[in-house]
């Protein structure tokens, strides 16, 4: 729905976003950070630990990653409101929880690229001529 008067601004924004990344996503990320700051300290520490793990192994950026952080904030805000003990939220094996959580969102670019490379190499080794499907999703 591009009207003439909007066009210069949207072009400017397009250009800007090439330089800075999506402004909408930055806004969502700042909003997420502000929500986390409001949490009681032990919940905030737990969220920041999850966040650090996700930064390493989760989706790199984009709308998928923003949805992930918002879902994460939802979980811990609810937990804090209910006074749910941290262990009851993340379980005895926090890795199991964080991996189950992360699996819902797009792969990190590094993992996605390596998975593609691996699947392609196996297809070549198996003598298949049709290229396998792109598994970046």
């Amino acid at each position: 729905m591009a009207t003439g008067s909007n066009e210069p601004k949207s072009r400017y924004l397009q250009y800007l976003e090439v330089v800075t990344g999506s402004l909408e996503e930055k806004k969502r990320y700042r909003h997420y950070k502000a929500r986390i700051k409001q949490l009681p300290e032990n919940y905030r520490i737990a969220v920041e630990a999850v966040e650090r793990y996700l930064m390493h192994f989760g989706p790199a950026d984009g709308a998928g990653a923003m949805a992930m952080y918002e879902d994460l904030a939802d979980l811990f805000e609810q937990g804090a409101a209910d006074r749910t003990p941290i262990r009851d939220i993340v379980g005895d094996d926090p890795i199991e929880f964080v991996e189950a959580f992360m699996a819902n969102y797009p792969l990190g670019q590094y993992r996605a690229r390596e998975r593609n490379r691996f699947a392609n190499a196996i297809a070549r080794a198996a003598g298949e001529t049709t290229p396998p499907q792109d598994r970046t999703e």
Partner: protein
Amino acid sequence: MGKLATEMLKGTLEGIVLAILSSRPAYGYEITAQLRDQGFSDIAEGTVYALLVRIEQRGLVDVEKVPSEKGPPRKVYSLNDQGREYLEEFWRTWSFLAERLEQLREGGN
């Protein structure tokens, strides 16, 4: 709950949660509490939450946000037609698996 039970539960938790939702809509905490009552005492609320996010993404449940007295609005999950279909398939697969395992235990094949 031992390690083996935890491992075996992983593959079936989705079906279990859908089965719980087939009787009535519920929010995350209620589902976790019900699982704990039924003996799945080690289940983490976050793991159940991750599973709920997944079945929501796959369109197996409908979600309604209901205001709560304290904290953010709660997401109430209810099974939709696609979820019901999936649950039926889960039970069929479960019956197949249970039958085969029983045969193995009895030493037949």
